[in-house]
């Protein structure tokens, strides 16, 4: 493997993606808070995207497909974060059961 051509090697990207996946998995297991797990989950999403793009770049006949699927994953992750945020807020409110009405009443 030529070090100068390292960015042209599909295996490099795949290994990086595998590393990212492993790290994300590790964090996912290790953390026990919702937000911490969410962050690790995002890392796993990142691994998936990187993998998709690597394969798309080097092996796919139609590169648009990979793009579309990465966008798909990004959409998913954004949706996931939105849901997770709302759950966090809901849990927090139920748990604390304070300052409920004030914070979102932006009516003035």
């Amino acid at each position, binding site marked *: 493997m030529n*070090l100068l051509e*390292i*960015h042209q090697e*599909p*295996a*490099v990207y*795949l*290994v*990086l*993606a595998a590393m*990212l996946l*492993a*790290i*994300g998995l*590790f964090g996912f*297991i*290790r*953390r*026990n*808070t*919702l*937000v*911490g797990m*969410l*962050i690790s989950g*995002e*890392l796993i999403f*990142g691994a998936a*995207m*990187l993998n998709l*793009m690597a394969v798309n*770049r*080097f*092996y796919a*006949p*139609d*590169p*648009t*497909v990979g*793009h*579309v699927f*990465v*966008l798909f994953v990004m*959409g*998913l*992750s954004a*949706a996931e*974060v*939105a849901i*997770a945020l*709302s759950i*966090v*807020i*809901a*849990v927090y*409110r*139920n748990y604390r059961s304070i300052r*409920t*009405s004030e914070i*979102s009443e932006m009516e003035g």
Partner: protein
Amino acid sequence: MNPFPASEYIIPLIFLLFAGATIGGALFAVFTKWIIRSVCGLATASVGLAGMFYFLHSPFLAMIQILIYIGAVCITIVFAIMLAEPDEPQDGYGLHSVPWNVGAGIVAVAVFWGVARLGVTGDWPTPAVRVSDGSVEMIGVALLTTQSLALEIVALILLVSILGALAVARKGRHIE
């Protein structure tokens, strides 16, 4: 064509920088005790990932990656942290016990080994003839024609998730 035409040494160096940012950011995100630093790690990893995408001939995805991950995901997570996380992390807060962590490490290493091995030694097909160059226009066309199902599904998921988020978050409002 390489969208980042450069001389021989600069390119791999920049590549290594981005790769390092990806892995370093991810490790930082996973290992740090403070959740806010964890978000910083995620942001760093996202920037690195954007660099990877750039090297994978997709500046569009690189920019979108930054836009969504830094501009939306990280911000949203920070929002959640500000609203709900405890302020002072106690010892071991947010983390499982040591044996559990060791187990997690073993699982992670095993997964890494397996997946990386598969990736490196896999029997990949030889690159076929390109039918398009993956430009933004092509992506747009693809999203509205051949791949429109994906677009519809994402749209649906986002809609549902927004409605769900609103529903869940609003429900809490009335519990006094």
